[in-house]
């Protein structure tokens, strides 16, 4: 546990520490289990093999694939599941299978196969983090890999029209999201009060779907209706991945502004005084904020001004 653990993974955007589900699963698990990871983001100066990312490197080991990385971390005593019962451990396995079979195909499709999404968002994003000329080849390869993975889980391709498969996988994904929402209910995490492996997986699969801005958004829209799942993602982002001020993405900044606006309105409703101050500021933008009129006036004028203040 003294040996440094370095995780190479795809980078973040849209308020996420990573836009890549598998990378996100590992990052979340590391946070939950307290594993001290040094995260190095894959950019176009990175020299390793990109097909296997996320990759965990220690002094004597190189581990790839989220399940194997998590196993490795557990063996190093970074275990987010030690409070789970045997039954909860079994449930974890079952729900992960559900995620991989029912949700993942549609997530892959949204990112890598749906043309509008792939060409306007996914491909440019990944290509900018891959050096030329690999940037011309690798995204396409990742896209084909995603399509193959989808077809593999769905069975015999020649018998199906691709559109039928697409309808099926989105239907399955929506059902899976509903099931997850039902299972989570009003709890903060899936098992008790502290996050475990299952929370890492759900977060990893859901967060990119929730946050990345796509042109074709049917699955995203469905997810946004399941408010407890959205709350689940936001809670984890805020508690474990709070970005520094410099690190707020444009989308994050917009949200901050919108929240600020809402807060301002709320305060205005509660207090006429603040509203009046706003008014004063707007009317005379060049001048420094005026002190309250009552402070400098004679008693007679003070009275008439306080009457003025009371009017809406």
């Amino acid at each position, binding site marked *: 546990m003294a040996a440094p653990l370095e995780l190479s993974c795809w980078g973040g955007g849209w308020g996420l520490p990573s836009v890549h589900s598998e990378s996100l699963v590992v990052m979340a698990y590391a946070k939950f289990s307290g594993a001290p990871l040094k995260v190095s983001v894959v950019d176009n100066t990175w020299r390793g093999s990109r097909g296997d990312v996320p990759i965990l490197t220690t002094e004597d080991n190189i581990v790839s694939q989220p399940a194997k990385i998590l196993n490795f971390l557990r063996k190093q005593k970074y275990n987010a599941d030690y409070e789970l019962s045997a*039954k909860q451990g*079994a449930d974890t*396995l*079952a*729900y992960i*299978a*559900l995620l991989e079979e029912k949700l993942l195909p549609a997530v892959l499709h949204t990112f890598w196969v749906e043309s509008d999404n792939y060409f306007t968002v996914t491909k440019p994003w990944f290509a900018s983090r891959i050096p030329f000329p690999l940037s011309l080849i690798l995204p396409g390869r990742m896209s084909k890999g995603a399509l193959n993975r989808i077809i593999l889980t769905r069975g015999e391709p020649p*018998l199906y029209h691709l559109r039928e498969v697409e309808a099926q996988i989105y239907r399955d994904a929506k059902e899976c999201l509903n*099931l997850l929402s039902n299972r989570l209910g009003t709890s903060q995490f899936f098992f008790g009060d502290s996050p475990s492996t299952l929370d890492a997986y759900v977060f990893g699969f859901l967060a990119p779907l929730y946050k990345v801005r796509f042109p074709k958004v049917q699955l995203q829209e469905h997810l946004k209706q399941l408010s407890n799942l959205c709350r689940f993602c936001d809670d984890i982002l805020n508690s474990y991945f709070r970005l520094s001020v410099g690190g707020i993405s444009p989308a994050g900044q917009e949200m901050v502004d919108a929240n600020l606006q809402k807060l301002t309105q709320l305060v205005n409703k509660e207090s006429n005084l603040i509203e009046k101050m706003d008014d004063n500021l707007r009317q005379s933008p060049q001048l420094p904020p005026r002190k309250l009129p009552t402070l400098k006036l004679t008693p007679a004028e003070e009275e008439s001004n306080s009457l003025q203040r009371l009017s809406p």
Partner: protein
Amino acid sequence: MSLVAEAFVSQIAAAEPWPENATLYQQLKGEQILLSDNAASLAVQAFLQMCNLPIKVVCRANAEYMSPSGKVPFIHVGNQVVSELGPIVQFVKAKGHSLSDGLDEVQKAEMKAYMELVNNMLLTAELYLQWCDEATVGEVLEDVDQCCQALSQRLGTQPYFFNKQPTELDALVFGHLYTILTTQLTNDELSEKVKNYSNLLAFCRRIEQHYFEDRGKGSSSIRSS
């Protein structure tokens, strides 16, 4: 099945009660039927027995070609044909029979999750073993062990996965485990993995006796002590 076709089938299904001559078609036993198909067929049979719906099993060499979707097993009910456990569960539900109605939303989610686990791990194992892919046997056996461990823990000392009443999950698990335990393979390791879990063995025996032998299929029913 496309969305529209499924809705259509459900409507027609609801109209008619379950006939006496419902038939299940599968491939010939012995050499022809694949491990995975055998498991699927047993799962459907177990499910229908649990629902108390009579079904006659017919083995045909060309069962795959008879099936409109190419998948086996399929059931022929009235003038409708439905294949695979998932759609068959839906079809049966449209006719007013369900094993999982008594479950709450969380339990239903759990049930579906465990069914995926079984599909993911046991089905994969069966497929690999059928085609004798030696290279990955070690990994596959590990997955099977993990899956059985999870199932064993989930089942605990209960008679069925959701305590007293069997559901489609019990049918699916039975189909796969029973197939693994009873099919002669060159490699015994798969069935040995399952045999490590005594409650799973007891589970299979229980379903076999209650839903298959007791229904007059076998000559005599042997109750375990």
